[in-house]
């Protein structure tokens, strides 16, 4: 046969292969992209099944066709070139179908690396078995004429087909599975080298397409050589071994050995020159025979290499496993930090992980409470150890390991618990030969201590220390996190309560002030914090008189608010009984002094206003003086008087007086708390009495409401954004006069 024809045929094959492959890829892509996502899963499943069915049927029909051609050609000479070309094409196409079929199956059932090796070894075994069975079955075999094979009976042709089918499938499986192993860790060169190998395999196989079965051609020799070279190159791609856990490595070792011997056996038996059975494959298709031969060689070399390599990896497997556990534990732990906010859960997980990572016989975690924070403290979690034993460790003795760790803030390793003087105080413990104590540090404070023990002495090594130190850091962060969340929840709760207190306090102040025809009353109160200590109230004590009170509880916040509530109670109950302001203050002081904290006090002004006469009686209990402005006169009225709750009995009674003023039409009386006069500007100066007086003077002819607004506006303007103000209350009375008074 001419070389040119050979080339044409070869090219024809390549083109054929390309067309089928691209068709396959195309339908494949259609399959994935073409189907809209809303199509049901069942449709997808159905299409996949249909494809598999089509591929299998195709392969079957083609194999059947080849079988028929073979049967016919036993008796009838169908010509040399054309028939051989057609036959070879059919064979290659049938195996292409099988190839795609296996690829789909493989994609559907993804297995682990070791399972894959096991599968390959099993396939090798199956193929060997088939091979042996067929060689044992009676058939006449082949006659060799001019390097060509002529089957002697139909059974031989049938067996040849069956064997070839198994051989081809097996070779495809081998290449596909090894591909996964070689490309386990993909690099640019690894993928390239593998595809070069596949290319060499394909060309070496296809180059024999036009030659007689037993003929050796130069091209096939060259490409087979190249393929073998690439097989060796690719056989060094064994990175998957390193990532296997120790147990799986042992399996991998076993399977590799099995696969290696399987492939070696296959390689030997199909290469025996005078055996009849292997000629069945050669007869069926020369390219197939070359392909099977080369892929068996690939399998043998690759699994031989993987066996040796796995063997060398075994000693380090344990260390590798440990690192892996360590990494995954640390990973789990850091994930945990974001999920577990309960300290107890956290501690349990941490001790469990420590037990796993360093194979400790017992582990426990103690939380050290931070001062004043009110955290849960003490033992949080323990494994394989009773609390009684742990209590021996939680001691404040100066030489105890716990104290040492608390002081040094460093890891403490005790190699021999029984002999070491630092642990001599402990009762004999069978379970603890060696002890490792690790402080959990947060901002250089020990927030917890992690203990781990092993039964044997010298049980911990530097590696354990390193791992657990890293571990402890993570746990410390987790604990700190959990505490922060606890704290912020607490804060939120307090905030809610404070809002409630604010709401309650607002209700303590009068919602509306009573209205009278003879005078105007206006009041405003603004706490500096959510709740304040300022108070004012008005009550009509009899048909002629109205009592008003303004007060300021020392301090601010919730405490002050409580006292304010108490003052309201006192005012509401005593005002109608003790109409004289002086008597009222004495009685109020009596009740307050016994109930109030000794460093707190309340400043108060109590005054009564006669609705018709305009007589104003003022008693002052340590409160800011009252600003009184009339048309021709202005003064700060400051009757003698002490703050309530400062001192009991006599001293208070002796130092309280009443002042009486007859209000005239247009007179303005301003009560206020020190929040007004002590408001400070950003430069630190106080608003003071002078400014207050000026503002009131400037507005004295306006209504009580306008005067009140003017004062508060001026204070706001004065303090501006950076300034400071206390609780602030203003109460303005403006006497309008009565008709009866005018008549008089």
């Amino acid at each position: 046969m001419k070389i040119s024809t050979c080339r044409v045929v070869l090219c024809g094959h390549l083109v054929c292969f390309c067309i089928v492959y691209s068709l396959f890829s195309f339908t494949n892509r259609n399959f994935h992209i073409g189907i809209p996502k809303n199509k049901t899963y069942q449709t997808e499943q159905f299409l996949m099944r249909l494809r598999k069915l089509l591929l299998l049927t195709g392969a079957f029909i083609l194999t059947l066709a080849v079988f028929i051609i073979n049967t016919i050609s036993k008796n009838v000479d169908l010509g040399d070139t054309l028939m051989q070309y057609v036959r070879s094409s059919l064979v290659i196409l049938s195996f292409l179908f099988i190839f795609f079929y296996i690829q789909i199956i493989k994609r559907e059932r993804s297995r682990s690396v070791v399972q894959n090796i096991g599968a390959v070894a099993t396939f090798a075994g199956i193929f060997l078995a088939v091979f042996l069975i067929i060689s044992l079955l009676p058939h006449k075999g082949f006659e060799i004429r001019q390097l060509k094979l002529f089957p002697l009976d139909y059974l031989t042709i049938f067996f040849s087909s069956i064997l070839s089918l198994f051989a081809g499938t097996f070779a495809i499986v081998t290449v596909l599975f090894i591909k996964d192993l070689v490309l386990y860790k993909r690099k640019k060169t690894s993928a390239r080298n593998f595809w070069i190998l596949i290319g060499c395999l394909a060309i070496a196989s296809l180059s024999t397409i036009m030659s007689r079965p037993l003929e050796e051609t130069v091209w096939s020799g060259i490409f087979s050589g190249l393929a073998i070279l690439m097989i060796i190159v690719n056989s060094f791609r064994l990175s998957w071994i390193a990532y296997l856990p120790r147990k799986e490595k042992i399996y991998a070792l076993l399977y590799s050995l099995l696969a290696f011997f399987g492939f070696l056996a296959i390689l030997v038996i199909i290469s025996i020159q005078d055996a009849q059975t292997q000629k069945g494959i050669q007869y069926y298709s020369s390219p197939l025979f070359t392909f099977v031969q080369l892929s068996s060689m690939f399998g043998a070399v690759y699994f031989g290499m993987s066996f040796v390599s796995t063997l060398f990896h075994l000693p380090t497997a344990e260390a590798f496993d440990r690192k892996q556990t360590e990494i995954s534990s640390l990973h789990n732990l850091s994930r945990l930090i974001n999920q577990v906010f309960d300290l107890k859960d956290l501690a349990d997980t941490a001790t469990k992980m420590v037990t796993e990572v360093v194979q400790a016989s017992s582990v426990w975690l103690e939380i050290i409470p931070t001062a004043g924070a009110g955290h849960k403290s003490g033992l949080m979690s323990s494994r394989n150890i009773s609390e009684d034993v742990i209590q021996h460790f939680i001691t404040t003795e100066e030489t105890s390991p716990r104290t040492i760790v608390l002081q040094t803030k460093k890891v403490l390793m005790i190699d021999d618990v029984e002999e070491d003087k630092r642990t001599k105080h402990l009762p004999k413990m069978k379970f603890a030969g060696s002890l490792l104590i690790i402080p959990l540090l947060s901002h250089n404070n020990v927030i917890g201590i992690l203990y781990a023990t092993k039964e044997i002495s010298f049980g911990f090594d530097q590696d354990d220390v390193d791992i657990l130190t890293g571990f402890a850091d993570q746990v410390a962060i987790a604990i700190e996190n959990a505490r922060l969340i606890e704290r912020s929840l607490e804060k939120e709760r307090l905030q809610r309560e404070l809002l409630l207190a604010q709401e309650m306090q607002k209700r303590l102040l009068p919602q509306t002030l009573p209205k009278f025809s003879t005078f105007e009353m206006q009041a405003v109160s603004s706490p500096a914090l959510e709740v304040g200590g300022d108070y004012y109230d008005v009550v009509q004590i009899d048909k002629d008189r109205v009592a008003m009170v303004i007060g300021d509880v020392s301090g601010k916040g919730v405490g002050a608010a409580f006292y304010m509530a108490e003052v309201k109670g006192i005012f509401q109950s005593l005002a109608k009984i003790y109409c004289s302001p002086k008597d009222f203050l004495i009685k109020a002081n009596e009740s307050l002094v016994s109930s109030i904290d000794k460093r707190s006090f309340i400043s108060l002004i109590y005054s009564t206003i006669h609705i018709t006469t305009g007589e104003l009686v003022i008693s002052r209990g340590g409160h800011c003086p009252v600003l009184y402005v009339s048309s021709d006169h202005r003064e700060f009225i400051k009757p003698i008087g002490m703050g309530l709750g400062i001192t009991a009995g006599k001293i208070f009674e002796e130092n309280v007086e009443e002042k009486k003023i007859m209000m005239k039409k247009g007179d303005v009386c301003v009560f206020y708390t020190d929040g007004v006069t002590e408001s400070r500007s950003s430069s630190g100066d106080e608003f003071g009495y002078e400014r207050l007086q000026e503002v009131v003077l400037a507005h004295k002819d306006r209504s009580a409401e306008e005067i009140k607004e003017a004062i508060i506006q001026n204070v706001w303007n004065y303090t501006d954004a950076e300034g400071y103000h206390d609780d602030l209350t203003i109460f303005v009375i403006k006497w309008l006069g009565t008709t009866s008074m005018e008549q008089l």
Partner: protein
Amino acid sequence: MSDFKVNIRERSDSIHVLELKGYLDAHTTPILEDSFQKLLNEKKYRIVVNCKELNYISSAGLGVFMAFIEDVRANAGDIKMSDMSPKVFNIFDLLGFPMLYDIVKTEEEAAGKFSKN
């Protein structure tokens, strides 16, 4: 703004002087409390508080004196105050502190009141 300092000084007549400086408000009262507590722990009950450089005192600051005066007086001692600026005195005065405490012009005068007793 809320700078506050206390300096404890012992006079030759074994009277202890607390020199206050700055703003005494709710934030800074613990400093004064600690100083008083220290003197009381050492059983020093003759105390003069020199307010020469005290710029401001809030109700919480006044509360500190009230908290300790009982203890001090129960031990035959006293807290006397001196050198107040008019503004600070006004705050003490409004609440009637002069009725309970000796508030005098100078430290010498305050110390003198002890020796008379």
